[in-house]
């Protein structure tokens, strides 16, 4: 009787380990995560407008159909990245995701406080190499550190009503992301 209970206890403990390890391994094992879905659609370090989600097809689940979206799939191994995004009339936001879809930074047009959102994205190592005086003089230069070398920048522009969708898409079409060669 005691022995059977011990076996069951062991099974529960081992089950817990199996459960935790599969949960932790899922982001590594996932083949259909957002980044993988975007690889065939987006060349690296280029801003690409995404197709609007429809009932028939959507690139990712739970996309907001009121927003025009554009993605820059980045790889910082060749240098830091410069993002320039004009804000639309209604609401524009920029969200930075790691390779594993973690939103590590997000900013909207009002927080950016300008007609154009301008950001420099770099790895912590690249940030450490930025000369200090440059860091100070360019006070309005917003530097974001990416925790991973690869990731996604997602630009979202709201169309407050369906008729304004072309306006939102035009605003995103002018957005750019480009690698700045290491000096």
């Amino acid at each position, binding site marked *: 009787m005691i022995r059977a209970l011990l076996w069951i206890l062991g099974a529960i403990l081992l*089950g817990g380990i199996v459960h935790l390890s*599969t949960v932790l391994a899922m982001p590594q094992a996932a083949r259909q995560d957002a980044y993988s879905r975007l690889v065939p659609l987006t060349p690296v370090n280029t801003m690409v407008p995404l197709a609007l989600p429809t009932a028939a097809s959507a690139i*990712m*689940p739970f996309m*907001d159909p009121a927003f025009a979206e554009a993605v820059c799939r980045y790889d910082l191994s060749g240098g830091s990245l410069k993002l320039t995004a004009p804000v639309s009339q209604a609401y524009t936001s920029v969200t930075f995701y790691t390779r594993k*879809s973690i939103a590590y930074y997000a900013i909207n047009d009002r927080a950016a406080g300008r007609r154009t959102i301008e950001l420099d994205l770099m790895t912590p190592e690249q940030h450490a190499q930025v000369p200090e005086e440059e860091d100070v003089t360019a006070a309005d230069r917003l530097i974001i550190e990416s925790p991973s070398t690869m990731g996604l920048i997602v630009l979202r522009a709201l169309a407050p009503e369906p008729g304004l969708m072309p306006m939102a898409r035009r605003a995103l079409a002018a957005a750019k992301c480009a690698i700045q060669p290491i000096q």
Partner: protein
Amino acid sequence: MRLLFGSCFTLLIAAALGLGATWFTLTRGVAFGALTIGAWTAWPKSGSVDIDPYARATIARSGELPTGMGDGVAFYAHTDDAGNKLDGRCMFTITGMTPPARYWTLTLYDPEGRLVANTMDRHGFTSEEIVRNGDGRFSIAVAPLARSGNWLPTGGVEQFVLAWRLYDTPIGVATRTAKEGPMPAIARKGCS
């Protein structure tokens, strides 16, 4: 012999328990730090680096990109206030007001996060489109057949999910009670 039987039995139970628990938590979208107001639940931390391992696994599996914390917060409803499943063959009303936000959007999805086909090609509302009463409150009819006023078509699907996204909002990780963020009520008004 008994040892062999015992260990096989243990391993089998362990695998079933562990994988079963993983499947259950990932399909139900279990995550820590949930903010529930009425029928609506949000996970503000899922839009930041403080995301917990369960939410990370769920997102990796589904392929979605969570709403970033500096962008806004997304609330989801799978039932009405009374706990009834959101059935696309029934009529529901969404009434009340929303927490402060510069803009909000309401979107209807199927449980897998796809938009639902309908004759109007309408999948939701934004805060600018909605028709309000004199006091700023609104009422939205979520129903398979056309209604007057704010009508959100369900396409007659067996089950649907509502997403309420608040953009540029003070609602987030620091929000604790419904007093700070009054979310609209969802009520079932009969089924066809």
